[in-house]
């Protein structure tokens, strides 16, 4: 079970958190301008990487804040955590 460093509360047990899928998928500003394929790309397509992945997490049983995490899915190592709206650390891209 992970120990996750919530950027607002500090280190807490994984059981207090929920994962929210891939990070940095921006909701299109003008969905009506998109073709079916473009909308499907936003709606359904996820990378699901084995290795370093950018993810969204929320501190459900805590401050209820969303934040981003860089995690290696092959060994569960958490490499970085940063707040919503902050730039992702470039060295993992």
């Amino acid at each position, binding site marked *: 079970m992970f*120990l996750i460093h919530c950027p607002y509360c500090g280190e807490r047990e994984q059981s207090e958190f929920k994962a929210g899928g891939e990070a940095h998928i921006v909701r299109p500003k003008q969905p009506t301008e998109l073709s079916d394929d473009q909308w499907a790309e936003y709606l359904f397509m996820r990378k699901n990487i084995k290795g370093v992945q950018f993810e969204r997490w*929320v501190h459900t049983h805590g401050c*209820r804040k969303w934040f981003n995490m860089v995690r290696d899915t092959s060994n569960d190592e958490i490499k970085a955590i940063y707040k919503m709206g902050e730039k992702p650390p470039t060295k993992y891209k």
Partner: protein
Amino acid sequence: MTNNLRVKSSKFIDETYKISFKFNNKTYYGYKGDTLASALLANNIHLVGRSFKYHRPRGIMTAGSEEPNAIVQLHKNTSRTEPNVRATEIEIYEGLEASSQNCWPSVNFDLGAINNFLSPVLPAGFYYKTFMWPASFWEKYEFFIRKSAGLGKSPTEPDPDIYEHKYIHCDVLIIGAGISGIIAAKTSAKNGFKTLLVDEKPLLGGSTIYQNSEHFKINNQISSSWLEKEINEIKKIDNLEIKTRTSVAAFHGYNFLLARENLTDHLPLHQRDGKVRHRLLKIRAKKVISATGSLERPLVFDNNDRPGILLSSAIEKYSNLFGVACGQKNIIFTNNDSAYETAISLFQKGINIEAIIDNRENVDSKLVKEIEKNNIKIYKGYTVVNTFGYKRINKISIMQLSKDGQKVVGSKISIDCDCLGMSGGWTPAVHLFTQSGGKLKFRDEDQVFIPDTYPSDQISIGSCNGEFTLDEILSSISKKLKDFLNIKKTEYENLEIQSHFNKTKRNIWLLPSDKIIGKTKPFVDYQNDATAKDIKLALREGFRSIEHVKRYTTTGMGTDQGKLGNMHALGIISETAGSKMGELGTTTFRPPYTPLTFGTIVGRNVGEYFDVFRKTPIHDWHVENKAKFENVGQWKRAWFYPKENEGMHEAVQRESKAARDSAGILDASTLGKIDIQGTDASEFLNRVYTNAWSKLAIGKCRYGLMLNEDGMVYDDGVTTRLDENHYIMTTTTGGAANVLGKLEDYLQTEWPELDVYLTSVTDHYATISVCGPNSKKIISKVIPNLDLSDDKFPHMSFKDTKIDKVKCRVMRISFTGEQSFEINVQANYGKSVWDKCMQAGKEFNITPYGTETMHLLRAEKGFIIVGQDTDATMTPIDLQMDWMVSKKKYDFIGKRSLYRSDTIREDRKQLIGLVTENPKEVLEEGAQIVADANKSPVEMLGHVTSSYYSPNLEKSIALGVVKGGKNMMGQKLIIPMENKQINVTVTDPVFLDKENKRLNA
């Protein structure tokens, strides 16, 4: 033959403390300190069970948690009965009753043993291959398999014991209290780390503590004496906690471990009452030191499973620790030096050794020489080719190995014996290490897997790290601990070590025989009766992956998880397939390392504490008035209120009629309530609901439909505008938490620019809904100064008012189609307001109704319930709720998905009403709907989602979803049931009061 095989007294056994116990209904005696296995062996009992498939007689094989054979059922037919207990682990206590498991009718006469003679037709995969066909025979197979293949019986009565969970945080956790673990614990604790040391055994000191040989010395003391002093010292250290009888079950990532502390299993039953039996420790350690030791390997040869065949190290432990001789005519069979320790130890105690069979040709270590000096015959370069004796071994035959070890040569020699100790070298116990995510590497010279890369802050020391000899362990431990704990020095830097152990080993995974493999039974997995022959067969049939071979042959799938045989299985696969051991990988070791009882896992969360549940402020009233409850999410909701002899149907019919004829009252406190504030609150609602919100006047309510981004209906409810920038949203009872979570997600991640704040206020209010033609009269009695006229207080509006001095909010909204008033009041006044309404409604026969009636009433009106009439594949258009979808709004969650090619299909399943040809016939919810039941295959058009008998319409009504249903009004369809077909007609989903006249009646 004497029945007491105690030898020279052991200091670990208290011979003044006699304990009686029963095994298979016969009374025996043992001493305090005995395990069930040692006490049985002292009574000359080896035969304890039957094997799983062939029902071959099996005996005690080991002295630890790796035991595959000696698994027993304790206290049969009582509430404390427990299956699959290893006789080698359970400590005896007065009154212990154990019985053999896998035998019927008895261990000495077992009908299933006929499988042994049928074994040529019971190869690997037999169960898969045979019982597949014909399927209808399964019932018969199952009876046979269950009756004869016993993995014990689970208790049928409630567990009388108490279990609990405990969190432990420590700096350093040490798993295993052998010599390495003791040294690590002392070093860690003395350097100020908060240290926890756990061991599964009742005694500290591992196998060194009963080591009594002059050949192994530390600082010129016999290793056990040296270790004993260390143990006495660590017991005095304050910041070191020691837990014995505690086995680590799981080692998860980030150094999170689960361990089971066993507190009462060694006590007589009458001493256990009121005490905690097992404690599940949830340990979060900054650093973990694994000192889990190693397991001795058996050797794989024909008939290597007879009672009386044990691991050589087990024989040594029984003699040194328990003072028990496993046999009087012992033979040791080995491929390495460690079995000579056993031999020397037996010899010193005066226990007879007939011979030693050693695979190796050239051996001359000090240990070997000492044996030779005492005129014990050693057959060097020999192997056992067969064993004899049905319920106990009585003879072996041996032959010489060829130079390459692939064949046997020369002539056969027979030797009588009653006990055979075997040693195939040692396997590091890396199970927990691999569970934690650690990767192994293969060491070719002695064919072992050892830890390679660590996924967290941890190390492995001692024999679990492949250091098998005393000098190997002690010469490296100091540096390892210094590096790992980041300390300057330890007390163990200049130990003087004497260790006469030669490390050479002749590893042959499957020993050759003079017979062809098909005629032999060399067991690899004893519990599951998997032989080397089965593994070879699996390879011949094309299995390659170790995981597939494992499942096909069931190797390693017993309660012992293949602790003994997995390495041999791998070895035989790699030899047969010509692949390299290191490249083959290993099977995954999954938690728990040793089995856990359900009680331990559940802890105190039993009975009413099994799951949390939520009660409304009016709950006690419902209980007093005999409501039946249903679970909705975590809530207990009043379901219906049966009177006298009423069943559910009668109660619901009465409640439903009363609500439309006069007045009904419902506790709606469980509906989710979210307080929404901020200057962008209206804009926010515009984006999350399908309909428009900006123009909703203050004081008004509106029904809203919320979609997922994929366009499917997610939740619904009424939202009220309290003020310019203040709304209160209601959600479904079950959806409240998820809706809040979803809204927060959008606010924080997609629209952080919006000035909106969300607060869950579900628990703050009690909500009482009074409906029916007389509801207005009742409310006017409860709140006399509130103007209830339709023009001052129209449908879909609210008023802030007071009942006596208590502030409340009354909403005129309706989920039943009747005129209704919903009183929201601070939760702790809920009960008294409810009482007031009941009092005021008495003259109108106000009738409390539960969720079932609520569902019936709304179905009469064709109102959907999200989650019952929808299933995450229904768009608002599918629900015939097009009117709810704003055409003007540029965007809202899910809007774009409503005109994807798939969502605009005409033949999607759409919500419709159904009436039955026979108005008394009520459909089953979930029943399939078809047009032509005779067509093959029958085309499934949809299913029934809600169905009731309506007392107000005096007919059966139902809602359902049907492909293209919107255009099928009036069409006849069929509901095929098990023994009949029901004719139905498609109708509009609104059955009652289409014009909504009742809202203002």
